[in-house]
């Protein structure tokens, strides 16, 4: 059973598995209902609209629905609920039949609302382990991240240290921390309803320039309610981030992923469980097709920034940026899945390149700039001509602060201060100031990955599995990150893929138009009607 099929890795793994192993028995897809959109509908929309399914369409054409009906079954559930939110009969059947559960679900925002992070990354993992324990023979492949290592330098081995904190907090107990974070959420939620906070929020609503005249009664209460939601979200986001930093993690995401690992280890003792830690998962090189990427949570925003006039990126030149293609991750997952079913799995697998095929920050930055250069060189116009001359360079944090975005922002503020006595309708350079603020936040977000912590992630366990493959299966299932040519990957595959699939989202443009196709998983009714969903080229990304 695959949990998290709507995510980047989940989709690619499903399609690659169906392409490489069409004779597979049955894959159950646990999908959450989204308001009025049932699980079946979500999956159908995914198949209709996501380019990931193109190779399957190409192979099976009109017969794809039949093929998927034979191989795939969608079950509605919710991993954060008891018994995975499954109907009792479905749950019982699955517990008897499942060989393996693959949990690729997770919230990959670096600093999300603590409630969401706990629910998706920790509570769900514990629920799944409980489900596995009550199953007849199911194993578990749980997707984590290499960056649970947190703020530390050096070689990161494939070992699990229960109750680990990068800061080395004595007597740290992940279980107690998990409960304490839940208590914090409850406490803050109650605090948000308190009279003090309500008064503060009401004051805020009334002080708003555009609304102060008319806000009263229900409208005012509505505004207070909105402010409360925002207040709670911001408070919990900051609280999660602060706690993560105290314990030595750069963000809430890595904190919660690490807690999940410790809890899985505790509650899953004796069960066939493997935890898989990919590094930064990026564009595919082969499957489902060359140059597939999705979403803007990974390095897309940063690489986009390097394609603008932004030049000085604070980074540690020697630090290895650990990027791995999504299809390499999926190949690794398939090998590990087989190992779990055979009960020959290790506890931890890292899927990373920083040891096997390192590419340091200096090179990554230069390759990104060169990839942008190649693009701009092919375009006409003054802007392209200028942009291709603005190569990004790695600089120290001090130089960045002295000469880049923070300094530029300070200059703008000074100009604004000087201009403030003038009767201007709009503050000059307000837009530039906002852009620089965004840049500063982005850099701050990515600092742990580009400036701090020189991690070298060992990925030997999966290589051992790959070596053990019979020669005739190596082409389909082999895992090899040593042969990746980063020049080719960065310049001709990764950045062009981001330009195609991700940059439009950053810029607020629609994605390229794709021909619409219809898909219905269930057998068609006798009248032959099919559900038809139009494609506007962008909606699938939010499925």
């Amino acid at each position: 059973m695959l949990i998290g099929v709507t995510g980047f890795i989940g989709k690619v793994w499903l399609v690659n598995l169906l392409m490489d192993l069409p004779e597979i028995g049955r894959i159950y897809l646990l999908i959450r209902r989204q308001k009025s959109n049932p699980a079946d509908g979500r999956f159908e929309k995914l198949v209709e609209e996501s380019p990931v399914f193109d190779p399957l369409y190409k192979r099976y054409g009109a017969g794809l629905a039949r093929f998927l009906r034979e191989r795939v079954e969608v079950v509605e559930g919710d991993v954060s609920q008891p018994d995975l939110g499954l109907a009792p009969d479905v749950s019982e059947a699955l517990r008897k039949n499942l060989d393996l559960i693959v949990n690729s679900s997770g919230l990959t925002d670096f600093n999300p609302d603590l409630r969401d992070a706990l629910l998706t990354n920790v509570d769900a993992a514990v629920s799944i382990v409980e489900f596995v324990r009550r199953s007849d023979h199911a194993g578990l492949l749980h997707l984590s991240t290499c960056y649970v290592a947190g703020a530390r330098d050096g070689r990161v081995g494939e070992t699990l240290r229960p109750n680990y904190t990068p800061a080395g907090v004595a007597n740290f107990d992940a279980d107690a921390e998990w409960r304490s974070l839940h208590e914090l959420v409850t406490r803050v939620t109650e605090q948000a309803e308190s009279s003090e906070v309500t008064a503060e929020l009401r004051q805020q609503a009334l002080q708003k320039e555009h609304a102060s005249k008319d806000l009263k009664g229900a409208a005012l209460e509505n505004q207070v309610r909105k402010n409360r939601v925002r207040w709670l979200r911001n408070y919990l986001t900051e609280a999660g981030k602060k706690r993560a930093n105290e314990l030595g993690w750069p963000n809430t995401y890595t904190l919660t992923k690490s807690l999940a690992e410790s809890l899985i280890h505790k509650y899953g003792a004796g069960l066939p469980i493997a935890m898989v830690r990919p590094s930064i998962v990026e564009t595919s090189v082969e499957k489902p097709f060359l140059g597939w990427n999705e979403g803007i949570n990974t390095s897309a925003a940063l690489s986009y920034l390097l394609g603008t006039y932004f030049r000085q990126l604070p980074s540690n030149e020697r630090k290895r940026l650990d990027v791995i293609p999504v299809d390499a991750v999926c190949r690794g997952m398939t090998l590990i899945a087989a190992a779990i079913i055979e009960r020959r799995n290790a506890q931890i697998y890292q899927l990373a390149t920083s040891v096997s095929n390192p590419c340091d920050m200096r090179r990554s930055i230069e390759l990104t700039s060169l990839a942008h250069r190649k693009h701009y060189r092919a375009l006409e116009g003054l802007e392209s001509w200028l942009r291709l001359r603005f190569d990004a360079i790695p600089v120290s944090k001090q130089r960045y602060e002295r000469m880049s975005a923070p300094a530029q922002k300070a200059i703008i503020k000074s100009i604004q201060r000087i201009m403030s006595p003038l009767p201007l309708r709009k503050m000059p350079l307000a837009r530039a100031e906002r852009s620089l603020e965004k840049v500063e936040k982005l850099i701050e977000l990515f600092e742990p990955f580009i400036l701090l912590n020189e991690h070298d992630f060992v990925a030997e366990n999966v290589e051992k599995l790959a070596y053990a493959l019979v020669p005739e299966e190596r082409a389909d299932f082999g895992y090899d990150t040593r042969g990746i040519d980063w020049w080719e990957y960065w310049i001709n595959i990764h950045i062009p893929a981001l330009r195609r699939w991700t940059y439009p989202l950053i810029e607020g443009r629609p994605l390229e138009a794709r021909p619409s196709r219809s898909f219905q998983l269930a057998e068609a009714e006798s009248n032959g009607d099919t559900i038809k969903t139009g494609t506007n080229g962008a909606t699938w990304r939010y499925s």
Partner: protein
Amino acid sequence: MGGPYGWAKQDLNQSNHNSSDCGAAARVYWRVEGSLLELTTVRPIAFFTWNGQTFIERWMRRGLVLVMALLRPFLYATNRVFATRVVHTVLRGISRDRLDLLGEEYFQYKLKPQLKAAGVKELRRLIDSGVEVVLVSQGLDQVMGPLARHLGAKWVIANRLEFRDGMATGRLLDPVIRPRGVLRGSLARVRMERVLQNNWFGTWVWMFRACPGRMRWSPRSLLRRGTSRCWSVRSCTSMAGQRQRRFRFARRWQGSGSC
């Protein structure tokens, strides 16, 4: 395996051509300068330096190129190999990644529009006839690789920079293909030379060092000048999957009895 995977292995195989290759079908060594392009040594170097990573680096290197350009006539008159070596020293510290991309760019936007149609036509005719064409040029392999791919030539002999940790040291690897002589025009017009017997493959390359402007040897003289070493050239064929692969030049010493 497709994609960028497996290149290292394939590169190894391709550079590993052996004595059987040396004795293969007819092979032609084709001087690029004059027949296909009017390629000078300094211009590509100036292009590379002007597109360095930082602004300061660009200006500094450009200044050095200017100095080289002033010195070049004297150096050129003294020793063309030395002159070629000197002019490439300004590339010290530029990354291989950058040079590879700039080489492609230089070919695509600067050289390609200037290719001589008659020369290209003749070369393609020769390739289509099944003859193995080896392009020979004083240019860097970063520029010649894309040219060879464009023309469909499988082999190239060109100048190669030494790299350490991915950065150019500024030193040219042996053998250095020197520019043609000043009097090349009066001596002979550029023409292709067909070499039918390739058992002395390495010798041909050696001969380019001796007389790069024209191919003025005869198989008989080559037999006399037989050498015990053989230079391999790197194939420029495209990778499976329609993507052009990066071109890299490698040399490999062969045993004396192999060629």
